[in-house]
């Protein structure tokens, strides 16, 4: 019984902190975890008293555990999500002849050299060889776009460049073309450390992303942080809970059997939490992406990664 209680509590409870006390149910849940006062108990003597004592101990223990865990993952304990996948999947990711996302990267290379738009220019006409010009670029996105007054992710930056430089139409989110170009560009940063800017202009957006990450959402009233900050390394439905480091996107997800963006992955998690997913390209998703990349700062880029 106590184990079941622990599990439920692990999912539902969190110490009320000024940063994370967003959900309406939080106060009620926190007070429920306080040890019940013995004199108020309707239970009788003997074994019931004993049970009550155990309950008090368990509750006290829970409060302690919950308080101790509500924090960021220390920098030196951060691990790429590829640390949590099977050796087979990791081998598939690291072998360019086995990583299925490499097929998409090749499509991206073709698109990079394909002329488009009213200017009839290809990406390569301005940027040259992506192996040089795009090296490290994906590790710096999302980034603040002065013309929009807010950050854009790599996909949006590609579309900005298509619209303003190529005078071409924007590619749809999650379209094969946009994923291919993104995967091709991100591939050029493999092995380089994630290094998004966190200057004064960008900080408010990273903070907004953090607030979303820590906010309880959806019918399950979960926050991203409850799994990925507090319970990483444990199992959820038989699968290890990773730290949600964003250093491998776009990813080839075996479950999807195709390549997908970080925004798709975030929407996936949101629907798992039974929250209404934000639209593709919405500021909320970009802020979240920005925070997740900032959180993964210094980790080596693995794009295009393979995930289960």
């Amino acid at each position: 019984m106590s184990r079941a209680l622990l599990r439920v509590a692990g999912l539902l409870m969190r110490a009320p902190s000024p940063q994370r006390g967003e959900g309406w149910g939080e106060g009620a849940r926190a007070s429920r975890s306080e040890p019940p006062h013995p004199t108020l108990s309707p239970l009788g003597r003997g074994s019931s008293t004993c049970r009550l004592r155990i309950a008090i101990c368990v509750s006290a223990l829970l409060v302690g555990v919950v308080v101790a865990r509500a924090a960021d993952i220390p920098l030196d304990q951060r691990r790429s999500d590829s640390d949590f996948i099977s050796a087979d999947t990791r081998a598939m990711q690291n072998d360019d002849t086995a990583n299925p996302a490499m097929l998409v990267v090749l499509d991206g290379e073709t698109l990079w050299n394909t002329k488009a738009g009213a200017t009839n220019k290809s990406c390569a006409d301005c940027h040259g060889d992506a192996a040089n010009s795009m090296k490290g670029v994906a590790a710096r996105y999302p980034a603040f776009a002065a013309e929009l007054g807010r950050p854009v992710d790599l996909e949006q930056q590609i579309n900005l460049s298509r619209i303003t430089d190529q005078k071409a139409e924007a590619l749809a989110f999650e379209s094969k073309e946009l994923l291919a170009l993104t995967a091709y560009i991100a591939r050029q940063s493999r092995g380089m450390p994630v290094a998004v800017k966190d200057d004064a202009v960008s900080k408010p957006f990273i903070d907004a992303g953090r607030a979303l990450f820590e906010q309880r959402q959806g019918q399950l009233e979960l926050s991203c942080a409850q799994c990925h900050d507090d319970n990483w390394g444990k199992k959820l439905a038989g699968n290890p809970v990773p730290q949600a480091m964003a250093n491998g996107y776009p990813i080839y997800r075996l479950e999807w059997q195709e390549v997908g963006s970080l925004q798709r992955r975030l929407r996936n998690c949101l629907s798992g939490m039974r929250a209404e997913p934000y639209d593709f390209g919405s500021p909320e998703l970009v802020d979240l992406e920005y925070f997740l990349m900032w959180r993964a700062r210094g980790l080596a880029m693995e794009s295009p990664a393979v995930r289960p």
Partner: protein
Amino acid sequence: MARALIHVPASAKKGDVIEIKTLISHVMETGYRIGITGQPIPRDIIDDFVCTYNGEEVFHATLYPAIAANPYITFFTVATESGTLAFSWTDQHGATQVQTAAITVE
């Protein structure tokens, strides 16, 4: 047609066992899934894969709907002579894609 990635060692000693890796982009739609309109998504799979070594068949596989998208097939063969390895994938409609790789055997 589809994009394929093949890995064959460029050179090998006569009698060596060599590993060959092939990956091709294909949806491998099972035919058992229902689309957003409620209609079944029609089956669309590669159902045959053959590798020949200087014309002689060295590997043959029949694929079924349970094979995941972008089939990755890896196998071994013995390096006998310099020449060409030809890989061909045929889908259920009979369309075939052939790709070749050269190997030098000393």
